């Protein structure tokens, strides 16, 4: 067995030290040593149960018993797609984000980014906001554009967290509050400068 091309190229159980493949049958729970590198590690092995889908054939249900699936004519339909209404069997049924979808609608919605649980790429707005705040701090009285950007990023972070159903948004709120304070401070400074200049 050869080492994996890269650590992200994952394809099953491997040694956590050298990342070479391990024979799944030989890995047991408890103290283990890698046959390749000799490294010792503690392991807990799992045997995931195979997915079980009960699909009834139309012949079994009888001609009056059920409609057939749109994609699998021989299978009994168990429901409709909540988006397009097509009949689906248990093989086609995809339940996600409080929707029951057929494979085609799932593909379409996940490509559009409309299914939060199927999304895999995001922007880290929280970090972006924190960076803008720091830049604003460096620019001191000229901070307004950066702190406004931080507020925008904070709001985007809040929205994203709400969409994804993620918990604590403390960082986003801190960024928003500090961003607003920074903007107000910067604007107040220039207003005072203008007023003082006008008074002279």
């Amino acid at each position, binding site marked *: 067995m050869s080492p994996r091309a890269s650590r992200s190229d*994952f394809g099953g159980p491997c040694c*956590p030290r050298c990342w070479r493949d391990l024979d*799944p049958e030989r890995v047991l729970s408890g103290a283990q040593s890698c046959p390749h590198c000799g*490294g010792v*590690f*503690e392991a807990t092995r799992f045997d*995931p*149960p195979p*997915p079980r889908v009960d699909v009834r054939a139309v012949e079994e249900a009888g001609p009056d018993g059920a409609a057939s699936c749109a994609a699998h004519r021989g299978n009994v339909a168990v429901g409709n797609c909540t988006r397009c209404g097509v009949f689906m069997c248990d093989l086609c049924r995809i339940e996600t984000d409080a929707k029951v979808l057929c494979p085609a609608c799932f593909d379409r919605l996940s490509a559009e980014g409309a299914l939060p649980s199927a999304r895999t790429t995001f922007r880290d707005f929280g970090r972006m906001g924190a960076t803008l705040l720091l830049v604003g701090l460096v620019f001191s009285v000229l901070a307004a554009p950066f702190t406004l950007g931080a507020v925008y990023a904070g709001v985007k972070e809040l929205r994203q967290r709400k969409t994804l159903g993620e918990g604590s948004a403390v960082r986003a709120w801190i960024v928003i509050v500090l961003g607003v304070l920074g903007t107000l401070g910067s604007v107040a400074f220039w207003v005072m400068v203008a007023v003082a200049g006008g008074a002279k």
Partner: protein
Amino acid sequence: MKGREKLGRRVAFSHRRYVYATRDCFEIDEIEGYDVTRKRVFYDDVVLVTRHRMVPWAPIVLSGLLSLVGGLTAFGLRGEAHGVAGFTVFVLILALVTLTVLLVAVGGDAITIQGKRTQARMDFVLRRGRAIEVYRRACRLARERQQRIARQAAPRPSGVRA
């Protein structure tokens, strides 16, 4: 489980990875710059959870170098830095040397959660208790889910109607 709970992280030079436990899976957020790529290891896909001791080389080298620089600075300032300044330099160097020794002696723990197609890895430097806690929690989450699926899939005893 409501929302998601942070379990641990792994920090490298180019990216950071955070691992969270959610209702159905372990989520791995890989952050490069301002881009986040999310991967998931579903509880019903977990095949192996491991824990092993590791040497945290990056923190050791960093604190060692800082100790060295501090020591050389103190050596250069000997005779000049008295009173509070000398004491401050001494305390800083002592803290850095202690940290380096601790890192070498205690080290860290790494946990991997391996699924059929994806994996999550977390490093815990100087936090063995937390590492053991996370290891047990990861095992429990995967075991509970897989046992539930196995129970649902088990054939019903004869005479019992669904």
